[in-house]
């Protein structure tokens, strides 16, 4: 758990006829991160060719993505294939699948076309409605709002036989023809159109045999309903749009089963082909190589042998060996599931290098301790736990929101930490309902602490966070040494800023500072002690640059000016060590600062609530608690993360590793 998983590299040769079975087995096991065999710097390997697949991987991926797109439109995200899908795999008929997708696309496009034409009608009617809205109708008994009406309104009649053509022609322009009824073989209309289109409207009217008439008195009320008519028409068109939108969904939904089955088959084939792109082949054999966790070696070995009936040759290489291909070993986190939210925090910063310490198990107590110190309240912590549980339940079923699921767990953990520290400091929604188990944080902040704790004032709280920070920095330094020893970087173990000499100076600095504090800032330790604690390691650090020069000697040769260069680099390094460690340590005081701000805010809300009574007081306290939970919760979360990243990680963690990503049925 403290270190990343131990890895091993497999080099395998199997017969060509067994390659398919072996690929299927490798996919089913899903433990190998393949390496491209072409990277092997060997003449014999250069003569090998790639494995030719029956269908192009690009075509398969393209089809798979198209189906994904279709399924997404009805809110379906296909699930990763299962082993049974691998066994039931059928050859991909690219053309057949393409034809099906093209057919669906074609049908969808024709619906879209219909949608577009309805949309044009909607836009035209909206154009008229906007005019009516802005300037009124302009009928004789309805005065215009302004002189700018662009509407043309007329009433008239056309022969019944021309009505269909008339209405069809009007559709091309922003217009509204309201049927006013029929008389004999004539249809009466109230026609609203735009003045700017009068030329085209007149043409349509003359083609339809239009005759202008006065609006009969009994139909005058129709004018009042014009706006309603437009709205009703728009409503009907919008409803039709919705129907068409549903038709697109139904079109895909009807094919859902078939599309999902094709998707699964494509996905399995795609993954198999991805594996095979890493294979190289001779006339009869296939070669592949890749990394896997050491713990899986025996099981995989057995499976390969069984898949090819023992007709194979397997070689296993440990990282760092001369035989390995690509010396960048992938890194697999090795933590229990409970640490997943903290693993997320670590991987956001970077991936640890192989063989170095994985900080995840240490981030959990560190992060939670800092969060708890900054946000110590049992009641508010409980709210966080509830919010986290709700979030977790919500995101559990949404695979693509995995990050939010982990974040919900992190909130639950933070809530638990707040509850623990709330009990220690006796804070329950900002109130001391029960006596503090450790010390009365709120009492100290407000100036009248209760109980007999050793922590009595704000300076004591600040001191706690300083000691905490010093401990964290020392743990970081210790991890750095472990990493340097494991990676056999002996000189860095001494000369690195976080190496032995750096830590020596830091320890000396802490001793000197505490000696001064104990002596009321008036006395320093003796000169000899100061020299031994800070001077000697500083002088020893001077050897770093000359050592580097001798170790990486260039053809240029020695130049006396280099001494000046060594001196400058030494001075800069010393400056960085002194200021860096001081800043790192003092940075932890923010933990106390935010904790004090949290307590102060709650005290303020109680004071404000105390100025009122009854329901107002309750409202103020509820709102105050909500504000503090949101504001301080976020602030404490961010600051705890910042301290973990910049004061702890930077001591030992470079985050330049490469994550282990085997090809499996669950691959992204």
């Amino acid at each position, binding site marked *: 758990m403290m270190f990343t998983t131990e890895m091993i590299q497999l080099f395998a040769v199997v017969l060509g006829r067994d390659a398919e079975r072996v690929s299927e087995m490798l996919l089913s096991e899903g433990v190998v991160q393949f390496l491209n065999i072409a990277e092997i710097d060997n003449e014999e390997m250069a003569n090998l060719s790639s494995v030719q697949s029956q269908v192009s991987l690009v075509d398969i991926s393209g089809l798979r993505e198209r189906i994904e797109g279709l399924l997404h439109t009805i809110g379906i995200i296909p699930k990763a294939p299962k082993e049974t899908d691998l066994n039931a795999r059928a050859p991909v008929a690219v053309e057949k699948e393409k034809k099906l997708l093209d057919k669906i696309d074609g049908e969808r496009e024709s619906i879209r076309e219909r*949608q577009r034409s309805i*949309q044009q009608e909607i836009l035209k009617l909206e154009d008229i409605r*906007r005019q009516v809205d802005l300037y009124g109708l302009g009928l004789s008994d309805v005065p215009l709002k302004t002189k700018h009406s*662009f509407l043309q309104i007329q009433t008239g009649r056309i022969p019944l036989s021309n009505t269909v053509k008339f209405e069809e022609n009007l559709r091309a322009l922003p217009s509204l023809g309201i049927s006013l009824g029929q008389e004999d073989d004539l249809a009466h209309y109230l026609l609203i159109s735009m003045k700017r289109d009068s030329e*085209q409207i007149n043409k349509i009217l003359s083609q339809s045999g239009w005759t202008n008439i006065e609006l009969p008195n009994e139909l005058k009320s129709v004018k009042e309903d014009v706006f309603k008519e437009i709205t009703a028409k728009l409503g009907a068109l919008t409803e039709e749009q919705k129907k068409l939108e549903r038709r697109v969904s139904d079109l895909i939904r009807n094919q859902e089963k078939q599309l999902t089955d094709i998707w699964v088959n494509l996905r399995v084939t795609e993954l198999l082909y991805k594996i095979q792109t890493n294979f190289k082949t001779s006339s009869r054999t296939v070669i592949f190589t890749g990394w896997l966790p050491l713990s899986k070696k025996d099981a995989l070995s057995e499976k390969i042998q069984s898949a090819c009936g023992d007709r194979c040759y397997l070689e296993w290489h440990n990282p760092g060996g001369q035989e390995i291909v690509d010396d960048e070993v992938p890194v697999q986190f090795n933590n229990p599931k409970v640490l997943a939210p903290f693993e997320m925090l670590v991987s956001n910063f970077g991936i640890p290098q192989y063989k170095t310490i994985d900080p995840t198990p240490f981030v959990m107590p560190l992060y939670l301790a800092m969060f708890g110190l900054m946000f110590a309240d049992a009641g508010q912590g409980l709210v966080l736990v509830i919010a986290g549980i709700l979030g977790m339940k919500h995101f559990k079923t949404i695979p693509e929101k995995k990050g939010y699921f982990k974040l919900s767990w992190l909130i639950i953990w933070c809530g638990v930490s707040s509850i623990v520290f709330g009990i220690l400091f006796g804070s329950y929604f900002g109130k001391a309902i029960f006596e503090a188990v450790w010390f009365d944080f709120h009492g100290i902040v407000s100036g009248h602490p209760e109980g007999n704790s050793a922590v009595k004032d704000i300076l004591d709280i600040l001191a706690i966070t300083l000691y905490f920070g010093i401990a964290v920095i020392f743990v970081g330094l210790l991890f750095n040494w472990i990493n340097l020893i494991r990676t056999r970087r002996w000189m860095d173990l001494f000369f690195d800023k976080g190496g032995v000499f750096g830590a020596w100076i830091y320890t000396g600095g802490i001793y000197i500072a505490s000696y001064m504090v104990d002596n009321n800032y008036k006395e320093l330790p003796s000169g000899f002690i100061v020299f031994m604690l800070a001077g000697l390691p500083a002088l020893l650090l001077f050897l770093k640059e000359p050592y580097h020069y001798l170790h990486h000697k260039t053809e240029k040769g020695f130049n006396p000016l280099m001494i000046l260069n060594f001196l400058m680099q030494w001075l800069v390094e010393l400056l960085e060590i002194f200021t860096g460690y001081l800043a790192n340590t003092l940075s932890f005081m923010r933990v106390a600062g935010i904790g004090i701000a949290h307590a102060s805010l709650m005290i303020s809300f109680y004071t404000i609530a105390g100025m009122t009574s009854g329901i107002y007081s309750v409202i103020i306290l509820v709102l105050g608690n909500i504000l503090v939970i949101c504001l301080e919760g976020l602030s404490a979360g961010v600051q705890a993360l910042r301290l973990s990243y910049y004061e702890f990680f930077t001591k030992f963690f470079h985050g330049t590793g490469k994550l282990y990503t085997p090809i499996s049925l669950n691959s992204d």
Partner: protein
Amino acid sequence: MAGALKKYAFINAKLRGRISKILSDEVFDRLAKASSLDSALDILRDTNFAQLQEIYSSTGDLKKGELELLKKEIELYVDIKQYVYKGSIEFINALLYQFEIENLKNAIRVFFNRKIRNRSSDPNIHYILYEPVIHKIPIDIIINANHFDEVAGVCIGTPYEPIIKKYSETVVSQGSLFRMEAAFDHFYYSNLIAAAAKLDKKDRDIVYRLTGVEIDLQNIDWLIRLKNFYNMPLDAVLAMLIPGGFTLSQAVISELYKAQNVSGILQNFVKGKYPGLTALLSSQTADSQSRLLLIDRILEEIMKQEVHRILAGEPFTIGIILAYFILKRNELKKIRTILNAKKYNLQQQRIESMI
């Protein structure tokens, strides 16, 4: 006067956060590869452009989605205004003019096509912004106008009235709006430069530099049009160009207009300032239009490099605001280009060359 830190610290942090959300090249690559417009829009579902997909699936109307994009872009400027120091507000207002001018041009085009060119109902009428951007211009009246006097009349009190009055006869007689539109663009840039002149020296220099590259791009665009489509002589072309360019002086433009070997001229001004772009120049082009398109591409690259220079340089300047606007505009432009290309079933390779 407030210090640079006070003026730009907040907006710098805010915009850097937003810049990180600008779509990556990988997304554009996937968009270009999408099998259909629907598939492309589906890729945007989990981005800030999800609205486009919603609009398209409910209306089938891509232009309506584009109009929403335009509104969002304008909102972006208005939104940024509330976070900047008051000295920069005037400058952002000057930038906002580009949208008002573009909208006004669209409205005038609809009027022009209907009234002067006697073309039937223009569907673009439905994709014009009727809401005011800076001035309250009744776009309805422009669209429905019968004469340029009416158009100019509703623009009284805006900087556009004198321009419309001055060029209305020319555009009617030439049957082209180019002169009037060019005058609008001239106004936009001169107004922008005047607003920039009120900024501090450091900010001013950044604005001149970036606006200068933009002017160069605009001038090249015109050079292509004026030479190839209007067959305009050099003197007339030079008179039309917008002053204030960054890289292309009048002398360089004259040379570009006349030269056969364009690479040689380009080498001179590119190799010193932008050595990375010399690779682009290795592509030899035969015809004049390709030459000018090559310059256009180089200027786009220069703009990109300038933006990256700003982002990597001193953080507390107006540069961050300009860089953000440019990046955002490019993002929107690429989205529009790809979606329209998908609508017209253009090949992936062609789309990639367009973005």
